């Protein structure tokens, strides 16, 4: 057979066109969100609209890393509409950083942002007092990391983010705790948590300091809650358990596809140190999210087929777990977000295939073996993902639910037993959400994963969910970054049109 002299060219063309090279050296932009996923709202010490923490998942790895940005909602260049003002159309607030937030630092970064690993999942925030907070984020890229990021809100409203792990710098991805470090160090490859995703916090309860950690002399038990050893500044900080889930099952041996199991990983908030005992083996079925009850942690499950669990209950003190068995009575294929009712008598669970909200009663929620029974199943708009409970005095809860495929935020009214309202036009793939309660109302912030922006939704009166309105978008659209050939990106620029 005669080989053409053009074959090197053909091979080169094939390779170069099949997989376009990704320049991982591109610096991560800190003036925008890029595939925003987890987000959390915290109240600023001086009141006002507070601070929004947003993670950029960098889902296509266009940039060198993911990021977390803190946004002072009171100092934005263009203000968000006043709560309840009901603007005629959603206000666009493209710029995140206002005057007084400081310019680039010596390392080229900004004080209000840090780098984290790509593929952020969920985030939980621990208030430390005096305008200080610590955010915990799981990222399911290479090292399956759990990050701690400290936020400090200055008296002048200036925000500062720094890495809790490592040297306190602005690149948190390097030293963040890895949950697959046992993969290579043990013959079984276990324990490990592939696809780390969900994060929740449980305050560590105590009678004496011995209940809080070791060495017990470093801890204290104050008002039945654990606090850590004094920091360099002499402050003691709340000590909680950081509960981490993972959305892919761990197999053993690694890569065999056998002996599948899921874990709930329980890390100390004051150190994020990991060892094998931190992994609670929950049997077959990956885990997605955690709802923290007074005694039990309620863990939702992914990938039930061929075996798995919609909800597993993990005892906060012993780590023992129970299966709820709900998958045999309401046959959705898997679960996403999970939350408890304000009186802990009900658990709300987002199911997939079909997309549904399951409401289950909890018999004896603080007892040794609570029994869960599905009492309602309601269809939801396509692709429901995360939910938040908005409690209402004297009435059943209102639930806010992001629906990624439908592009809406659904509001389920437990008093009515139905979806009471849908907020359209939220954006492309609404994913995470966080709540800023305002009396009997709430301002909701929703991350639009494929859109690049955060939607701001006001529910002025929680008793009137049908009046919920989209009032603003925060950030810039990422369409022209992700798809520069789109007709709307006429100049092929990277800033995107609003």
């Amino acid at each position, binding site marked *: 057979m005669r080989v053409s002299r053009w074959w090197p060219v053909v091979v080169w063309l094939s390779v170069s066109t099949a997989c376009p090279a990704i320049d991982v050296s591109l610096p991560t932009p800190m003036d925008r969100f890029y595939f925003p996923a987890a987000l959390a709202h915290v109240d600023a010490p001086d009141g006002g609209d507070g601070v929004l923490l947003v993670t950029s998942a960098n889902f296509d790895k266009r940039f060198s890393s993911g990021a977390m940005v803190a946004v002072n909602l009171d100092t934005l260049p263009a203000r968000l509409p006043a709560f309840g003002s009901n603007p005629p159309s959603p206000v666009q607030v493209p710029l995140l950083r206002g005057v007084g937030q400081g310019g680039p630092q010596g390392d080229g970064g900004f004080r209000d942002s840090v780098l984290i690993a790509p593929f952020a999942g969920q985030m939980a925030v621990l208030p430390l007092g005096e305008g200080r907070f610590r955010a915990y984020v799981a990222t399911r890229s290479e090292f399956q990391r759990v990050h701690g990021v400290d936020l400090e809100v200055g008296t002048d409203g200036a925000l500062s983010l720094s890495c809790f792990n490592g040297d306190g710098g602005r690149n948190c991805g390097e030293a963040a705790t890895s949950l697959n470090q046992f993969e290579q160090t043990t013959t079984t490859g276990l324990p490990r948590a592939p696809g780390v995703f969900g994060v929740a916090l449980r305050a560590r309860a105590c009678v004496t300091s011995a209940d809080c950690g070791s060495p017990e002399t470093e801890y204290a038990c104050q008002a039945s809650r654990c606090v850590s050893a004094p920091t360099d500044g002499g402050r003691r900080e709340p000590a909680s358990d950081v509960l981490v889930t993972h959305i892919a099952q761990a197999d053993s041996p690694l890569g065999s596809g056998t002996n599948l199991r899921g874990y709930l990983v329980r890390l100390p908030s004051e150190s994020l140190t990991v060892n094998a005992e931190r992994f609670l083996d929950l049997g077959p079925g990956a885990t997605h999210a955690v709802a923290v009850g007074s005694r039990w942690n309620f863990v939702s499950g992914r990938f039930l087929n061929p075996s798995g669990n919609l909800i597993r209950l993990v005892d906060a003190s012993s780590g023992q777990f129970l299966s709820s068995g709900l998958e*045999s*009575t*309401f*046959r*959705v*294929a898997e679960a996403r977000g999970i939350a408890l009712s304000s009186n802990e*008598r009900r658990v709300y669970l987002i199911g997939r*295939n*079909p*997309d*549904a909200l399951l*409401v289950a*009663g909890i*018999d*004896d929620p603080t007892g040794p073996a609570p029994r869960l*029974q*599905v*009492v*309602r*199943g*309601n*269809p939801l*708009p*396509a692709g429901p993902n995360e939910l938040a409970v908005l409690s209402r005095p004297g009435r*059943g809860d209102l639930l806010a639910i992001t629906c990624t*495929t*439908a592009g809406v935020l*659904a*509001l389920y009214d*437990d*008093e*009515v*037993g*139905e*979806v*009471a*309202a*849908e907020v*359209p036009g939220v954006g492309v793939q609404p994913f995470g959400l966080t709540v800023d309660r305002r009396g009997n109302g709430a301002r909701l912030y929703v991350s639009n994963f494929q859109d690049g922006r955060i939607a701001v939704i006001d529910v002025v*009166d929680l*008793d*009137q*969910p*049908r009046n919920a309105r989209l009032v603003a978008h925060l950030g810039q659209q990422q369409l022209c970054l992700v798809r520069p050939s789109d007709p709307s990106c006429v100049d092929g620029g990277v800033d995107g049109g609003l």
Partner: protein
Amino acid sequence: MRWHGALLVAVLAGCTQMTGGSAGRVVGTNDVILVDRLEGLDLAGADPALSLNRYLFVTSTDTNELRVLDLSGNCSSQQRCYLPGPNPLETLSIPVIDRPTSLAIDERYEEGVRRKGALLYATRPGGPELSIVGVAPNELREVRRVTVPAPVTALSALMVDRDTSRIFVATFDGAASTVWELRHPSTPAALRRISTNELVSRLAARLRVPGASVVALQAIPGLPGRQANGRPFCADPAKACLVVATRRESGASGDTVMFDLETLESVRLQFPGPVRALATSDQVTPADEALRPLRAQTPPPGALIYGVLDEEACGSSRCGGLSAVDTRGTAAAGGFEVVRSEGFPTQPVRWNDGLVVGFSIVAGGRVAANDAGVLDVAQLPLLGAITTSNGELVFFDALEQRLLEQPGPPSTLGPVRFTAELAPDAGAYVAGPAVVGDATRVGDAFVATSQASIVDGALRSQELSIRWRGPLTPEGGLVASSSTRLELPRAVAQKLSVGDEVSFAGCPMSARVSAVSDAVVGVQGAESCAAPGRVSIRAGASRPFVISGSVDGLLGRSGAGETFQLFATPAVRLAGVDPSQPLLVIPFGRDTDTTPPPATALWTMAIDSGLAPLVSQVDVNSFGTGLSACTGNVTLPGAVVYDVVRHRLFAAYPSANLVTEFDPTRTVRGLIGPNNGVFCYR
């Protein structure tokens, strides 16, 4: 040129196959509605393949449209197919409001037989609008979209006459529900002559319900002879009455009431609990001579009202199921009562712990029968079918409210197991339920042979629990408006005794039942409690044993030295059982008189019912790879309809975005597949 001819043939053949053979690409099969017995068509003698009785409308919720499954069998590639669009390569799409989730169709009754009109209505939860769709073959499109003042929570249609449609729409504005009536022409052509604004202006508020949401509506014709309070009530067949189910306190309470829309008088329907869906039955057609005996047994439309009980009332499937109320004749003092069978009130139809997710009641439905091992086909006056959230399809006799049973083993009671937080070396079995011989310690429990007995088929398989000083109110308690006088559900009040312990969520003091009269309970000890909140009641000393079943809930109570007897209440297999005899008997010992057990004392017994009702489930592993194969996630059904023309059952499966066809005459208990006439259309 010969190959050109072959190519032409191939192309034409391909086109023919494509027509009517296209996949539906349905996303969100949340509801289906059968378009049969349309106005102007005589059912008798009509060729189903040629008539209009051929459409099954299916929601494609996530694509904001409806699809139409053609039941005529006029498909080349499979038994049924979705109607093709104007471009036959595409499936017909009927764009409607966003996220259509619920469907209803114009209905009226002719000689007791349900006839359907030419307009269909699509709504969604939380949406303040509805689509009106023409269903005739020359329409198949949205005719009007109507905005209503608040999100729709329920809809029911009952035509005034052939020419006039009438729908009742319930909305909830966050504080109160309103039921609106809308009358409009019954044909798309006439409806088009009315502007949308004029249509909206015709909305007339008929009922207002403060503080509750209306979760279900059922419009029914009046019924001659129906009376309440000594006067005719909803008795004129030419006028509509409305059954309204409400929900309060997140489903913990609610009422079902029938309204006479002429007088606005109302009468309660005494369902065992709050209801979340309603329906009524119709009659077998008089056109078929052979069915005359069957027709004589079917009640007229509106006589029986079926309601799906809301499981949220008690927090579990124990209080769910499908119940029926008989509204014929004169209402009792408390309202119309549940259907009776063999002289006894019937119990809700339920099986296992799945929730009812769809149901269909049909007059003259056919179903497979197994008479002592001999397979046959039975045609029932009223056949019912329920789909459940655990994937099951349950057939039942909707006139007798009884599951259709197949031969099975006799019911048995397992040994009694006593557990309590006792010291490791502590004592012995405490009776509790009396036992035969000595008990054996097994782990932290004592196990013994019980003296209890059960009549065959009396109860479903479940665990019986007997708690010392156990709860007599549901988990979470009941609403209490006063700390001295409680108005409780009669079923609860009838089980109370003077001396029972009462606790209020809003008050720390302990109180006791001082008097019981019908549904009113007197309480002493908490007179100073201003805001009692919810009330919980536990058994007192006189009858301290509380007996409940994991499926049937609270069954009753007993005292030490007494014999508990359960008469025909939650019975399933009543036929052939002497209803004057107790179905469950549990003798109790006197040990607790001298050895009061700890508060955690619990005795349990397992009931193996031996019942074998006609309950089926799709076996996805029994299918090949054909177009109509039921493969994938065919696990969670939804709405279900019985096609009385073809005697087939069609169920939506939102878990797999498809519609499944069942042949009830070939359906067997357990797993079913293509050999039982099961097909799927996606």
